[in-house]
């Protein structure tokens, strides 16, 4: 329950990103602001400040101000980290959720086809999953990304531009298909053998109706359970890809890209990298707790039957 609340809060905060940027902080999170200044305690302060090494060589962005503007400080281009965090959260959450939905959709189709049709279809799909599974998830995602990010991809009438947010959604969904398809297939297989399905066949119920009325409702729990877990994985994958500059492309931001921005500042202005990281941890943790809770809640009926 708490997990759900945290998620809702994070999503809401991200949705309100423009509001914060324009009306509260009055900063533009996408424009470089190296020469800018802000008012702090009535004094005008440079956003890029000389380093505090003895020779005052080089410049560092200001750290957290704990005020509306530059709450979490600025990044190396003088942009407001807090505002970027919210905008980045939008992308991160959107990509993760989109990828999770797409992944479950693909995995659902593959799992149901393999489990219900069986035979050659099952063998083919299962082998394909084995093959996809053989490439480490992140490497697979990287390979796909590098191909798609370096050039626009044309798929029939559709053109995916290299900076489209759909690319990470598509890639992440694809690489986690085997992860989700396996349990779905197992469940379908078990359901197909279930006596109530045999009973329905014995009653002369058409296959499509069995599918719709007997298999899908029982499969729903599996899908619901997988949802948050896949989204958690997707969020982690998105941040990793973006960290490697293969996910969300500039000028768009995501939590992963902000961590990457913060990499160079990690010893001087750690907040730039720590804040988005913490955001990821909180959301993923909430998703995992949610997934766990769902599993426990949906398992109750099964465990209750064991009493003898």
């Amino acid at each position, binding site marked *: 329950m708490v997990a759900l609340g945290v998620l809702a809060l994070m999503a809401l905060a991200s949705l309100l990103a423009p509001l914060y940027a324009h009306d509260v902080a009055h900063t533009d999170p996408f424009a470089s602001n190296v020469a800018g200044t802000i008012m702090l305690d009535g004094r005008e302060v440079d956003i890029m400040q000389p380093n505090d090494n003895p020779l005052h060589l080089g410049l560092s962005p200001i750290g957290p101000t704990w005020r509306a503007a530059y709450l979490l400080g600025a990044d190396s281009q003088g942009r407001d980290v807090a505002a970027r965090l919210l905008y980045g959260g939008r992308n991160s959450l959107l990509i993760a959720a989109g990828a999770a939905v797409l992944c479950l959709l693909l995995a659902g189709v593959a799992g149901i086809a393999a489990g219900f049709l069986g035979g050659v279809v099952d063998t083919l799909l299962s082998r394909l999953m084995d093959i996809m599974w053989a490439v480490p998830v992140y490497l697979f995602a990287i390979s796909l990304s590098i191909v798609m990010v370096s050039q626009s991809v044309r798929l029939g009438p559709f053109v995916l531009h290299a900076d489209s947010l759909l690319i990470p959604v598509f890639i992440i969904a694809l690489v986690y298909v085997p992860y989700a398809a396996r349990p779905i297939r197992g469940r379908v297989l078990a359901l197909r053998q279930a*006596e*109530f399905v045999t009973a329905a066949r*014995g*009653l002369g119920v058409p296959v499509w109706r069995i599918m719709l009325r*007997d298999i899908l*409702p029982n499969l729903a729990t599996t899908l619901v359970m997988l949802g948050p877990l896949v989204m958690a994985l997707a969020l982690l994958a998105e941040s990793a890809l973006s960290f490697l500059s293969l996910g969300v492309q500039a000028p768009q931001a995501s939590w992963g890209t902000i961590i990457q921005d913060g990499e160079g500042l990690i010893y001087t202005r750690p907040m730039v990298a720590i804040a988005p990281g913490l955001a990821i941890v909180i959301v993923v943790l909430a998703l995992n707790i949610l997934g766990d809770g769902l599993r426990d809640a949906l398992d109750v009926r099964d465990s209750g039957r064991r009493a003898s």
Partner: protein
Amino acid sequence: MTLTPLLELRDLRKTYRLPRGRVLRAVDGLSLRVLPGETLGLVGESGCGKSTLGRCMLRLADPSSGQILFEGRDITTLPERRLRALRPRMQMVFQDSSAALNPRRRIGDLLAEPLRVHPAPDGRRRPASVIAARLSELMDLVGLPVQALERYPHEFSGGQRQRINIARALALTPRLVVADEPVSALDVSVQAQIVNLFADLRRELGLTYVFIAHDLAVVRQISSRVAVMYLGAIVELGETDGVLHHPAHPYTTALTAAVPRAVVGHPHAPVLRGDAPSPTAPRTGCRFHARCPQAQARCAQEEPALHTLRPGHAVACHFPLPPGP
């Protein structure tokens, strides 16, 4: 008097391919006729293939070879779509009353399903009012309150769930009902209720049963004829008390002797040693010879066919036992 059998099996086989090239012969060349109005009891120990046979009878499992004739018509290779038109006349009741009911659907929904998917005898879809009336009729038939229609399967006890399963099987007024161990998961006091229900329904609706069970006493209570199965084939077949009280096959003898009866006195010494061999093991000769106390040299080489011993009593044994006094 020759009646057209309601169901006839001719040399039916069902084999499963297992890894490592092993073959499981669940049903191994079995022929059988079920006459209209009779109750045929099918007994045997676990793994003898009686459940597989029951599913093959209704084409819920596809036989590997042989023929299935329902009402004189070959349905062995009938496509599922055409088979659906026959389903209303042949139904099954399963052993596990909870597994046979979709846990996510209400009883009313489950019972209405066959009425919804099959058209009424006049070829039209049944209106909701007709279905509702039929549902309360069915509940009455199996002795459950109409309010139960609103509830989910897990809210009922095993015996009640089995009544629901029976009601669903009867929704379309079938001629043949194959009941696969319908009472073996139930306690004695509830088991008796369900056995009685089966008997009452047969009388009221003129049903034909194939009653599969491992409990000889239950089978005797309900059946007019009994078939004893061992390793995928019938070893003895005949009128119930004839087979159970004057068995001709050594296996039937051993089976009846092994039943622990609720009578205090001299416990019987077990007749058979060891367990039944695996149905995947290759075999020659009589399928029972390895455990048979009366086995002779011929039994190891030559497989005995099911032959008529006396009217209404057939046995698959080279050296059938003489009938009792």
